[in-house]
């Protein structure tokens, strides 16, 4: 009886169709990564012969699992287009190769990009924290961390065609759009009333800041979303939350305590004063700490939305990943942070 092809065999067949001159194409070092909450991630090398030459290349495939952490907010096609648009810019990103909508190939949409050489130490782990602390002492990685962020914020996003992701209007529109986006995820996910979250949302709406300048914003710029090679940022990854918006939104994320549990360094890698000075020098922007504080509180609401969505998916039986179940206990913890930030 014929057995159905494995995922690895299906991917090999797909690559063969995209590289028709390839002969004897084979995959090796095939890993279904445990990272990635929203998408299935496969990392592998492909080897083949082409015109008498032996070829070897690393690939990374991101696949829509059917129902992702961000639910309807997740858009794989948009991610692919963003990475593609960033290719000719100074921002370090992987090369994007192919996007496929057809679910008959792997069971859902996916895209294939370059496997960038380097490592992504987990900043929440002891070993990861140590890695970043050691790199911080050497000094090269903190500089690269700030430079990569500045490369995004200095981008002429219209010229590079990134306005397709949506451009907010003047004034408070960016902040209010962000709140509305995450509130929609909360509405889809929430399983019991959360009065602390209600208070938080209403406070955020009542205190939304005006955006002074629009920039291309990553939305989750931190260690853990950066591939590092030789103490340099080789690529910025995890393109799911990017927006055209207030650059202080990214700055606030870097400044946030959410990303440096127990580390005195921002994002576990950069001294606060150095970050503030060097970022302002590279971008010509003035960091508004009050606005950043507001966005930090907005991130607490966003984290709550993530955790409600994640635990909701598990409770609804739509995703069996146990990491999602664990997040139900993160909801009160992050709401506690928000309550303290609001003074109660």
């Amino acid at each position, binding site marked *: 009886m014929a057995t159905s092809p494995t995922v690895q065999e299906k991917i090999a067949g797909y690559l063969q169709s995209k590289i028709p001159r390839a002969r004897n194409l084979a995959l090796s070092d095939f890993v279904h990564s*445990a990272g990635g909450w929203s998408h299935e991630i496969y990392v592998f090398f492909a080897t083949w012969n082409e015109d008498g030459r032996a070829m070897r290349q690393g690939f990374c495939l991101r696949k829509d699992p059917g129902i992702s952490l961000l639910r309807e907010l997740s858009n794989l096609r948009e991610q692919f287009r963003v990475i593609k648009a960033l290719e000719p810019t100074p921002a370090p990103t992987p090369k994007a190769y192919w996007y496929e909508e057809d679910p008959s190939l792997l069971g859902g949409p996916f895209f294939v990009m370059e496997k960038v050489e380097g490592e992504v130490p987990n900043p929440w782990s002891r070993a990861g924290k140590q890695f970043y602390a050691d790199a911080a002492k050497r000094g090269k990685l903190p500089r690269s961390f700030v430079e990569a962020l500045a490369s995004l914020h200095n981008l002429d996003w219209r010229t590079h065609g990134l306005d397709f992701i949506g451009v907010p209007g003047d004034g408070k529109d960016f902040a209010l759009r962000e709140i509305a986006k995450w509130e929609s995820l909360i509405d889809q996910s929430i399983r019991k009333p959360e009065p602390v979250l209600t208070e938080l949302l209403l406070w955020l709406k009542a205190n939304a800041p005006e955006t002074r300048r629009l920039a291309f914003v990553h939305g989750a710029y931190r260690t853990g979303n950066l591939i590092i090679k030789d103490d340099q940022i080789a690529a910025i990854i995890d393109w799911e939350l990017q927006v055209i918006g207030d650059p202080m939104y990214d700055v606030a994320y870097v400044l946030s305590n959410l990303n440096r549990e127990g580390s005195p360094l921002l994002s576990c890698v950069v001294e606060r004063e150095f970050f503030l000075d060097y970022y302002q020098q590279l971008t010509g922007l003035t960091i508004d700490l009050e606005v950043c504080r507001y966005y930090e509180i907005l991130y607490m609401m966003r984290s709550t939305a993530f955790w409600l969505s994640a635990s909701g998916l598990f409770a609804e039986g739509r995703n069996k990943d146990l990491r999602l179940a664990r997040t139900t206990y993160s909801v009160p913890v992050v*709401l506690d942070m928000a309550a303290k930030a609001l003074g109660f």
Partner: protein
Amino acid sequence: MIPANQLLSEIVTSIREVIAPAISEPYPKAQAYMAAVILEFVARQVEERSDIEEQKHAAMLELLRDLSQLPGVNRLVRGDELNEIGLNKLIEHLYAERGRLGEETFAAANRRVRQTLRKLLDQELKVAGKNED
């Protein structure tokens, strides 16, 4: 019968010391360790859930009593909604009526609501509060 907490503790130990280290694939290995973390939370949840609801109820009762004495706010207070849905509505009404109430009254009512929210949060944190190394 082995008490539930002891049983859960044994399962956690088994996952951490036997099952997870034997798994070589990164994804199922991470799943096994995460199961151990979740079971530790569940053990605390089983133990503490009943008193939490009582404390929450008492906090909300006190809030409604206090707010009903605040001029202008009392008409927003409904005794038949002594739960988190009712509290949500109350918060929304307070913000919606902020202009009518005036900043001083709004601030006083909001401060009092936040005291209760803190109490509710503290109850939830009995289960979810950090206890990881």
